[in-house]
């Protein structure tokens, strides 16, 4: 895990500030300020502004647009951490582990925490919070005056490599991302912010955890990969039949697959979230 994340960075060493796990960063001080984790405490603190752009859905109904315009928005630079989430459950007791309504979070909700208000050693403050449901993530966003990003926003922001907006055309970037998807989750997640930032200054979109999006269940795949590019798809998905636009974009397939396997109460050990906000 460690090596992979580092190699993602290495691929773009020339372009971005670079940090190695547990090591001083030799080029950190020379990195451009755009790529530094933004200071917290300012308006839209910790968020990066993503410019207007276009999202090309992997799957779409015949009536859907081939290209979906994405209006400029703010996106958290980092995934929400255990530390952040602890503040949330302190302020909103109904989201504490022992108090959460089972309908809003399955029995894995915050299971790795030591207690209601004690993340414990398995959930360090600087590590992404996981085992949270879609409901919980949504509530966190509201509490922060933010919201979850849409699939379109998330995919558009995440398609940027460290050097270019169209990361899907960057073979090395794609290869490194795919490598993360091939590996089982590590027993201990790494801290946030150690990955190099992408072109928009956002970090950890790949290589740390899966992330909730607001409309995770709209781009349903059936779970049977072969139907998803065939006419039968509408039997399962209620959507028009059309193949994937880019059958070689394996990471995109996997994200769609992963989202489709979820229900809103699911709490998964490698699934976290980050928030977005309108301009």
């Amino acid at each position: 895990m460690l090596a992979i994340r580092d190699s993602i960075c290495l691929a773009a060493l020339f372009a971005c500030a670079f940090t190695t796990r547990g090591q001083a960063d030799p080029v950190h001080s020379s990195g451009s300020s755009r790529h530094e984790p933004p200071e917290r405490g300012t308006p839209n603190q910790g968020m990066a502004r993503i410019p207007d752009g276009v999202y090309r859905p992997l799957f779409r109904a015949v009536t859907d647009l081939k290209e979906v315009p994405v209006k400029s928005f703010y996106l958290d630079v980092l995934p929400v951490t255990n530390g952040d989430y602890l503040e949330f459950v302190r302020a909103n007791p109904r989201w504490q582990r022992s108090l959460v309504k089972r309908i809003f979070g399955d029995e894995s909700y915050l299971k790795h925490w030591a207690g209601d208000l004690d993340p414990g050693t398995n959930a360090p403050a600087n590590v992404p919070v996981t085992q949270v449901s879609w409901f919980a993530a949504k509530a966190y966003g509201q509490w922060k005056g933010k919201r979850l990003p849409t699939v379109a926003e998330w995919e558009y922001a995440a398609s940027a490599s460290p050097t270019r907006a169209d990361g899907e055309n960057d073979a090395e970037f794609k290869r490194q991302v795919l490598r993360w998807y091939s590996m089982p989750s590590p027993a201990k997640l790494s801290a946030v912010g150690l990955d190099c930032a992408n072109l928009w200054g956002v970090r950890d979109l790949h290589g740390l955890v899966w992330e909730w999006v607001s409309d995770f269940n709209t781009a349903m795949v059936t779970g049977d990969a072969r139907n998803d590019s065939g006419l039968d798809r509408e039997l399962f998905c209620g959507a028009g039949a059309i193949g994937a636009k880019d059958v070689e974009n394996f990471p995109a397939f996997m994200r769609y697959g992963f989202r489709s396997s979820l229900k809103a109460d699911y709490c998964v050990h490698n699934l976290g979230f980050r928030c977005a906000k309108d301009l």
Partner: protein
Amino acid sequence: MKTKLLSNLRPLALVTALTFGTFTIASAAGADAIRPKGLAAEGTDSSITGAENAVLAQAPHVPPPITRKHATKVIVNLEVIEVTRRLADGVDYVFWTFGGNVPGSFIRIREGDNVEFHLNNHQDNKMPHNIDLHAVTGPGGGAASSFTAPGHTSQFSFKALNPGLFIYHCATAPVGMHVGNGMYGLILVEPKEGLPPVDREYYVMQGEFYTIGGYGEEGLQGFDMNKATDERPSYVVFNGAVGSLVGDKALTAKAGETIRLYVGNGGPNLTSSFHVIGEIFDTVYQEGGTTPSQHNVQTTAIPAGGAAMMEFKVEVPGTYVLVDHALFRAFNKGALGMLKVEGPQNLIVYSGKEVDAVYLGKAVEGGEAEKRVAALKAEVAQEIKSNPKIAGLTKEIQIQKGKSVYLQTCFVCHQPEGQGVPDQIPPLAKSDFLTGSDKGNIIRGVVAGRTGEITVNGKTYNGTMISMAYLTDDQIANVLTYVRNSWGNTGDAGTIQEVARIRQETPAPPAKSSFE
């Protein structure tokens, strides 16, 4: 059933399900309420008696044959787990597995069984997974009903309508990668009447791996999407790793046993030309069907996503090598396995090596080959002359060498101990003819053959000894020395010169010997 279903559910899952319309629910009061519409309630399928947990086996082993004569409910629990394992020496790979191994656990059920299938996706896994069993009649083979997030479990049921040997595999997007990482296995639906009894059954599954590094490149290797889409695997292996069926992990059997192989091909891309070197499949159930499709088969094609059963009796001890006979896969990419058969030799079926001689091409008079033979002979003569050890060929060495000639050539008629065959073949043991005759007479018999009456130890024989002229001069000299100094005979050694002289004096046999 009711208790089981209820205990499998989270207490509030019913409410969740209601909220999101996952199930059609008439009433949340009882377990029956969560059974999807159209599924027959327990007890209405009168063909089902009892319930049991499936016995799963890891390759190369196969669960025991099913002895019960009725259909039952079989509960299968299969866990999907992503693990780092050895692909070849020094090479690791992250395999996505059904049950912790590649290939996945072998599932054995009987035609007509109702299978309650639980797919458990281990909580540490990165990916959602599902399962498509080719033995299932229904959309996706169960794939859509078994789509499962990490840390969750899915359940579906099916009735095994069609007997046969079937593949199962993950069908989650991108399906080629899930299969390419090892997500396949076999499920056998035994026909009601069972399969013919055999002595041993084994489970072998072929699959390709597309690693970023080339074959043998050490370290943890990632999946290479470009190689996969180009169908250029770095590895083609049996049972998930190079060498998984060789050495002390080889399949074993005893001579005389009948073996049935269940062979699947997970692919994801290549068709296997499955062959066992040195064996002929007595019966092949091509494509995993239940009717023997062919007898006496050398190589059987197993498509990606397909399987076959083959039965054969192993007659002769030795090591039989399993290959994909697309040979670069076998010798350069790992598609090799072994079947070691122990037991007594059977020389009638297989003799072992009978002749090992230099072959220099057909001698054309004055041609290059003949010149080369002449040159070699001169070289050998010079070597013998200059090497006292060789030149001083002792009688003992001649007897040793002559014995091997005898045991390849003469013993068939004269018998291993020179005792001959009463009234047909004269004995060589304690033979007055052999020790009393002129050596030249004996040599002449070997070179030209012998017909007509001959008296040995007072008994008259009237048979035919065919010419052994194809033996070399030194072979004849040695075998002569051996028989004249074995089984109670004593005599001096024969020499190459004597044999050469007699051969020159003796007219060539009129026709080709049947031995040539």
